[in-house]
């Protein structure tokens, strides 16, 4: 099904640009062309389809669904809905306050905020197209578990005291859930607007990710990764997670890098730990959350994520090699 993108890249790289197959530049350019065409085609098709069926949830609706439920239900619900609810990181603050105001526990709210950037349906389909369904499902499962465990830890540690005081005083007005127009014309217009909005927000990250993936693919020899990033090297997983922290990208943007690293034989656990770290821990997100969380809570939150991702990396490396 994705052969067509490989053939297109073959044609452009080797016939139009006359680059040599197997040369460094040739391999990099081939990777770049194949991934740009494949990923952007998939992005547009998937977002359009989801938008058309109005499958997208709004944070306001999630708040209604999760609010007032027992923890056995609210934690899995929060991470599950976090995975499929698109929201821009600039909405993290109102979302956080809105959840707490509805009586949703801090742990459940944090579970939602952990899962949301890490997993989304668009990234999962593209990940599956790039490296297979098995890896994509493992990634989703690990992400959901990390979200629940992270949220539960924050709850057990009773970290509510590290939420800014003003947050507890805000009272929310009655939420007006958007009326959904379901005529064909409205659905098409909505789907198109969603494509424009989401692709407009993430295309830079995706393009940079493909560029980095292409350079890794063409220019970094396999022996480099065998030496430094094999499963025997215990430092490889924590290093991958640490390297992911300053890198700020959307989950979809990391996929080309995941693809290139896996092709070079870097173990799956190490690669998935890197992907989670890039998507979930980022400085801009921390700065935004600083408006509602005191520094010790942000530090604890980051530490919990760091150790969870390292654990995921070791676990997968141990189980799958």
């Amino acid at each position, binding site marked *: 099904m994705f052969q067509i993108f490989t053939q297109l890249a073959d044609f452009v790289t080797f016939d139009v640009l006359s680059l040599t197959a197997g040369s460094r530049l040739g391999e990099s350019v081939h990777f770049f062309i194949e991934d740009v065409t494949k990923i952007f085609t998939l992005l547009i098709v998937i977002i359009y389809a989801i938008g058309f069926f109005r499958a997208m949830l*709004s*944070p*306001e609706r999630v*708040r209604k669904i999760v609010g007032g439920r027992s923890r056995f239900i609210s934690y899995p619900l929060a991470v599950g809905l976090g995975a499929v609810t698109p*929201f*821009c990181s*600039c*909405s993290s*603050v*109102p*979302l956080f*306050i*809105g959840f707490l*105001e509805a009586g949703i526990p801090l742990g459940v709210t944090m579970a939602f905020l952990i899962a949301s950037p890490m997993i989304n349906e668009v990234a999962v389909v593209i990940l599956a197209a790039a490296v297979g369904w098995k890896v994509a499902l493992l990634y989703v499962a690990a992400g959901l578990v990390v979200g629940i465990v992270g949220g539960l830890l924050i709850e057990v540690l009773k970290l509510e005291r590290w939420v800014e005081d*003003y947050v507890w*005083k*805000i*009272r*929310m*007005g*009655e*939420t*007006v859930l*958007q009326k959904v127009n379901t005529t064909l014309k409205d659905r098409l*217009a909505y789907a198109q*607007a969603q494509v424009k*909005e989401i692709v407009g927000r993430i295309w830079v990250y995706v393009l940079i990710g493909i560029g980095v993936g292409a350079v890794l693919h063409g220019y970094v020899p396999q022996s480099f990764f065998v030496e430094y990033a094999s499963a025997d090297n215990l430092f490889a997983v924590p290093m991958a997670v640490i390297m992911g922290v300053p890198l700020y990208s959307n989950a979809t943007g990391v996929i080309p890098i995941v693809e290139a690293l896996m092709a070079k034989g870097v173990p799956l656990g190490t690669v998935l730990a890197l992907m989670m770290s890039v998507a979930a821990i980022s400085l801009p997100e921390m700065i935004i959350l600083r*408006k509602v969380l005191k520094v010790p809570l942000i530090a604890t939150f980051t530490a919990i994520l760091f150790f969870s991702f390292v654990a995921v990396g070791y676990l997968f490396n141990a189980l799958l090699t």
Partner: protein
Amino acid sequence: MKNFKVLGSGCKNCINTVALIEKTAAELNVDVTVEKVTDIADIMGYGVMSTPGVVLDEHVVHAGGMPTHDMVAAWIKG
């Protein structure tokens, strides 16, 4: 005269939404006022969690993303 409020903490989409409303009103030759609401407590007071949100004469008409040109035109004319 219609009064619009754009709810949002200053993200790019919020600024674009303000510009879109002003531009559309100018096209239709209708005088409107557009206010930016950036205080988080005020935004939440309208029951909006996903920004940008649009309030028309104290009623929330939109939340969670840029409205389309057609939607804005309908608010201004309606």
